[in-house]
């Protein structure tokens, strides 16, 4: 097949909204873009274990402890599926992990914010997982097959986590004044970083157009941000918390909420590595990876020895 014919077939597959599969021919730039996006997503799951995982040992009820431990375990599972999806494109988990700890690949900037109270466990479930769902549900239809299929399972679990987070906050709001204050303070801290999770405004998002043309991404950052705000406002009312945005109001003409803009300078600073926890998160990941090296080496050596014994 000529190069032109291959390109034509690839583009026809995209145009039909069919999936590109690992053995299909694809342009190098498409492969690189999928690897970049899926790796970033996998890293986000794995780094995301840290801020919530920090509260497992301090969870104030055994039921919440079990729920939280299971949730963080799910995140490890999501990391695994996504690294596997990347491996179908010829990049190993070990290579991707190296890139993460060397700072050459990114993860969601939200995880560079600290978790300062137990209410943050609920807020992360409600707002951060809620924003993740808005970002990720369209990805169930992304053009790269293994990624899309991983996302279907991940979205179902994220949806469950969001519900659990909301339910924790709702329960705390029915508790003491101190607990209600704890929830409000947590929502105040996480609201703007959650809005930043959709990425910069469309006018300043360099990769969006190509990713949409290839069917890797299916909605713009601003469209998804609007969807998230519209989804969240009634939930905040039900909880009885105030979202910290004086410009937030219903716009009957547009049929959507108007809202203010996050501090995009802060976003840029966090993405460049200057957030409150960037160094801490990477150090933690590097330490776990390096401390575990002898175990992984031992497991490989043992497996090789088993194979030799079977062969002889």
């Amino acid at each position, binding site marked *: 097949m000529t190069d032109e014919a291959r390109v034509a077939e690839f583009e026809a597959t995209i145009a039909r909204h069919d999936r590109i599969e690992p053995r299909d021919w694809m342009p190098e730039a498409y492969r690189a873009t999928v690897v970049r996006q899926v790796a970033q997503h996998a890293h986000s799951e794995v780094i995301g274990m840290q801020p919530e995982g920090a509260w497992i*040992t301090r969870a*104030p009820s*055994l039921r919440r402890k079990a729920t939280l*431990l299971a949730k963080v375990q799910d995140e*490890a599972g999501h990391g695994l599926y996504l690294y596997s999806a990347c491996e179908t494109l010829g990049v190993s988990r070990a290579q991707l992990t190296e890139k993460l700890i060397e700072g050459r690949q990114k993860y969601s900037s939200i995880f560079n914010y600290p978790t300062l109270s*137990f209410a943050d466990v609920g807020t992360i479930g409600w707002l951060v997982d809620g924003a993740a769902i808005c970002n990720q549900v369209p990805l169930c239809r992304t053009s790269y097959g293994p990624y899309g299929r991983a996302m279907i399972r991940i979205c179902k679990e994220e949806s469950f986590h969001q519900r659990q987070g909301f339910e924790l906050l709702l329960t705390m709001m029915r508790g003491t004044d101190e607990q209600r204050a704890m929830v409000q303070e947590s929502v105040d801290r996480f609201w703007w970083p959650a809005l930043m999770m959709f990425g910069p405004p469309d006018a300043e998002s360099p990769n969006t157009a190509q990713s949409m043309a290839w069917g890797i991404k299916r909605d713009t950052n601003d469209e998804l941000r609007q969807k998230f705000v519209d989804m969240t406002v009634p939930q905040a009312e039900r909880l009885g918390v105030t979202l910290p945005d004086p410009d937030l109001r219903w716009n009957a003409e547009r049929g959507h909420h108007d809202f203010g803009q996050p501090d995009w300078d802060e976003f840029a600073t966090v993405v460049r590595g200057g957030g409150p926890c960037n160094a801490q998160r990477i150090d933690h990941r590097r330490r776990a990876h390096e401390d575990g090296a*002898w175990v*992984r080496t031992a497991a490989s050596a043992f497996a090789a020895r088993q194979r030799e014994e079977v062969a002889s």
Partner: protein
Amino acid sequence: MHDDDHQSVYDGLTGGDESRWAFGAGLEAPDDALAGVGAPVPVGVDPHALATYCLMLGDDALVHSHRLSQWCSNAPDLEEDIALANVALDLLGQARLLLARAAVVDPGVVPVLPAGSPVPDEDALAFFRDAAEFRNVRLVEGENGDFAVTVARMLLFATHRLAVLQRLTASADPVLAAIAAKGVKEVAYHRDHAARWCVTLALGTEESRRRVVAGLERVWPFRDELSRTTPVEATAAAQGFGVDPGSVSDEVEAVLDQVLAASGLERPALPPVGEVAGGAGRDGRHTEAMGLLLAEMQVVARAHPLGRW
């Protein structure tokens, strides 16, 4: 796959239009993890002894679960993050049932909280007792150390617990029998997981062998307490609701010998760790690590004795 059904997929995941805001009807479903723990105390069983016995088994599970959960995001690879979290979750589930059962059969063991506190009994027991009231063995409370120490501790603990739970399935207390029946399946997996890692590390590299030897040496002196029969366990065995831990020693030793043989390792020749004022973990006399462990575990709960979570 077309964009026009894109929105419907979104709705499906969040439960449709109306329920998207309300999160569906399942939101306020009661927690049924503790269903069945309220059965009456059988005739011929001393309620206080039964409650204390439940606390021993429950505290072992709770404290070991705490240590294992500290591996989360720190394990050698993602598979092991998941596996250790699984073991921790299983033990946490056992602890919840056992603490709840203790509270039902003898409410006197539950710490008294301020009037109007909504804290359930299992949480009052977990978060509002001091170290001296915890009945777990000292084996489970020490800091994790490296992965080999965790593997060695999990092997010793799971081997003993599995032998106890297997016998406990015939307990005169139907609740303990049911908890044990569920636990047997879980702990059999824990033992298998630890045994596989013990063999893998012992036969992997020089470094891993050195580390697993050191790991076994670190935990081995704490095993005696598992098989020493306390007065409560003697009563439990006599009244048919519990197991004399001394009676499972032969089986435990045989399993450990098998794992050590497969690993090409010797039994550590180390004396048992000493007691404190004639007692150990089962008597509420713990290691220095226990106070720090509880300080972390209990800090949020204790700051909010009237809190709802």
